[in-house]
């Protein structure tokens, strides 16, 4: 089932396309950083509640429901195959032969994986449901020739500071090995963070060449038309007497090929039409100096959402840094230890 843009003017619709893209990226990183099933579950619920206010809940549910079985299988794999040496053993899945041990860590991880996958998938769904594809294509297309120095400086500074904090939270030993003097150490890490940040924002800021961006945009616009055309062609075939869904399998393949040819030709024809149409409207006039009607603009709500994501990331990493990133597992293990 294609995830199609749903028109609307709800909270998520009003966010900038870039914010939603970053929300998705942030959610993905969070799903890697956070290992606790309860915390991950809370994050998922929070995102779901936000999403259900902006997108039709039924539509969202029906799309997510399909994935439950698949993700449960993933969880099962985790439960079965995650057996570290010091894991707390519970029971064997196949008791008689003592095959496949199930451990507390495995169970906890399995549950976490379930929510991790769902959070990422939910973030993608929400992004696609509430953002016109054209805007999404635009976010990754290079547009302005020269970006303002101020904007560039701000993004480098912010990104640099984030990297600086991340470095201190995750690579403690490596940093300490750099130099004995704490000031020198900090200076080195700070400098490295800013250089990396500068390069990163250059890469992100650069984006796709406009030709590719426009190709994406035009492609998105064609999907609806082609599916309409496919419908017409299927009807035309039915009207010529082809049983479109015959019981005989070989016959079904034959029918499918008969269907594919006109669809293929229609698509080919469409792509030629598009090239003639866009050339006639000046597509190759001077593509690097192309302007855009659609304007992406951050509003205060975008900054708030972005700050929230960054804060959550920091919090997750900080918990890991303090070695309390997995309270649920800890709690269960403690419970079991007390009982025995």
């Amino acid at each position, binding site marked *: 089932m294609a995830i199609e843009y749903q*028109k609307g003017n709800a909270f998520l619709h009003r966010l900038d396309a870039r914010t939603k893209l970053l929300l998705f990226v942030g959610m993905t990183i969070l799903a890697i950083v956070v290992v606790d099933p309860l915390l991950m579950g809370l994050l998922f619920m929070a995102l779901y509640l936000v999403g259900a206010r902006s997108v039709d809940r039924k539509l969202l549910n029906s799309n997510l429901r399909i994935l439950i079985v698949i993700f449960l299988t993933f969880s099962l794999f985790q439960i079965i195959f995650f057996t570290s040496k010091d894991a707390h053993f519970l029971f064997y899945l196949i008791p008689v032969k003592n095959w496949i041990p199930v451990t507390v860590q495995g169970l906890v991880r399995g549950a976490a994986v379930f929510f991790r996958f769902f959070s990422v998938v939910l973030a993608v769904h929400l992004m696609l449901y509430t953002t*016109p*594809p*054209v805007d999404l294509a635009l976010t990754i297309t290079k547009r302005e020739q020269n970006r303002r120095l101020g904007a560039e400086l701000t993004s480098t500074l912010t990104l640099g500071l984030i990297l600086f904090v991340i470095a201190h939270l995750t690579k403690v030993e490596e940093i300490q090995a750099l130099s004995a003097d704490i000031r020198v150490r900090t200076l080195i890490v700070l400098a490295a963070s800013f250089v990396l940040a500068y390069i990163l924002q250059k890469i992100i800021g650069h984006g796709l060449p406009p030709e590719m961006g426009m190709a994406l*945009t*035009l492609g*998105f*616009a*064609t999907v*609806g*038309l082609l599916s*309409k*055309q496919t419908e*017409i*062609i299927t*009807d*035309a*075939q*039915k*009207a*010529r*007497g*082809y*049983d*479109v869904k015959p019981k005989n399998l070989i016959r079904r393949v034959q029918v499918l090929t*008969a*269907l594919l*040819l*006109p669809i293929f*030709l*229609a698509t080919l*024809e*469409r792509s030629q*039409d*598009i*090239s*003639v*149409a*866009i*050339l*006639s*409207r*000046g*597509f*190759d*006039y*001077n*593509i690097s*100096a*192309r*302007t*855009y*009607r*659609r*304007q992406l603009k951050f509003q205060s709500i975008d900054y708030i959402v972005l700050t929230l994501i960054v804060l959550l990331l920091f919090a997750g990493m900080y918990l890991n840094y303090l070695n309390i990133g997995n309270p649920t597992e800890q709690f269960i293990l403690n419970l079991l230890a007390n009982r025995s």
Partner: protein
Amino acid sequence: MEYDIEFQGVSFRYAGAQSDALSGVDLQIPRGQIVLVTGPAGSGKTTLCSCINGLVPHYHEGELKGEVLVRAYHTRRARIGGLASLVGMVFQDPESQLVTSSVADEVAFGPENLGVPRAQINQRVAEALSSTRLLGFEDREPHNLSGGEQQACAIAATHAMHPEIYVMDEPLANLDPSGRAQVLQMLIDVAKGRQKTLIIVEHSLDEVLPLVDRVLVMNEGRILRDGTVAEVLAAGDIPRVFTRPEIVRLAERFGLDPKTFSAEKFYTDLNARHPLGMITPAERLQPTSTNSSQPIIEFQDVHYSYKNQTAALQGVSLTIHTGELVALLGRNGSGKTTLARHIIGLLQPERGRVIVAGRDVAVTPTHELTQEIGFCFQNPNHQLVAFKVRDEMTFGLKAHNIDPAEFDQRVRRALELVNLLDVLEAEIFDLGKGQKQRLALASVLTLEPKILIIDEPTTGQDPQMTREIFDIIKHLNELGTTVLMITHRVDYAAAYASRAIVMNRGQIAFDGPVLELISDLEIMQANSLDLPDVTKLALQLHKHGVPPWTIQYEALEGYLAQLVEASHGD
């Protein structure tokens, strides 16, 4: 004198083609002129347009001789993108030239390419949408608009680029009559309003001729005639290439001003010259013939509505008898196609029953119904499934398990009916548009259907091809096939069909003899059906005894001759 467009001995042959698409064209078009280009299909009109905006030779490959100059630029050396800032082009099929996902994006696309600053783009979009009456459509998806709206959107998109020259390649071909008049007027307003050059390619002359300064008649890549409207009309018809509107021909016949385009002007001028008396023609409108043959298609109070939309059919009841030839008329979106789809089971009624050849459509699969019913779609490309004509022709036969021994005979008979026997061994890609349309019809005829349903068989075809298709349909009907044809062409419907059904907002607005329909001005206007010119004139002459349902040119000419004779006899 400074020209906007200049052709100097231009010839062009498409790569791989056997003959020149343009040969030895010399042409100068001064700034601000409105030029009509006409001629049969394949006469080089589209190639001429493509030369102006640089698609020839930069996109379509081939051999170009001579020079094309647009303003000061040699198109051979310019880029299409550069020329696009000067030349705005609109094509025949509106859907194929809309490329983005909203009307506003569509209109902004051109100015964006030209690097127009954002503030100005928004201004241009608003201005273009208001001059094409599309304000309020900004967020609509282009492919969900009606044909007329789509063409208006394409024109707005071109207009927003502020071109110096507008080139319109059959912009009216896919529109219904009310859409045609509106789009045509819009085109003229847009060009005249900014005093720009306009080149418009069109087959149907009666609507366009009164609005243009100059006419070019093309055939086989050459310009046969070039002059003012009066000059070109005065030079008379060219068989199979250029047929003047009927009123113009009658005006010439009776010595009136050759630039007579409206029935009103003709009547006033004629009356001034020969004070008209009365005639009493023997003909009477035949009473509604009660058809005594078997009913073959029956609709009983059928209701249908598409998802999230208003009802497409609202209580339709009708009976079509064996051997009838029925024309189904009405505006775009009035429910004609929906009705036709019910007959073959592509749609099932929500309420009511459809019975075809004694079977209830609701419980009979479509592929079984097709043994009795042939269905031809508007766009032949959608129903052709093979690469070779022979394979295409046998496909339906195989699907219905016909004895292979019969194949050859059936294929030949069907191709003969549509006059295509000579292409039996050809590749489908090599066929022209008119040939493809006839092939699609022939491939349906191999199954020898009792009922034939044809959806808009003549979209985008020239008058010659249109006449051929209608002749074939008439012939099939005479052989005993029951025919239901959806069409916009009231003139052809009146000439060929006996009965007309007019749909309006999902209901039947009229069902009866065609001649009765065309004499009923109220119903014609309420459904934006355009009277044939001959009938318009007959209506003007009604008070002098001419039957208002006259549709044949010859018949009207006869009445006029009688009237004029009588006026001088006194």
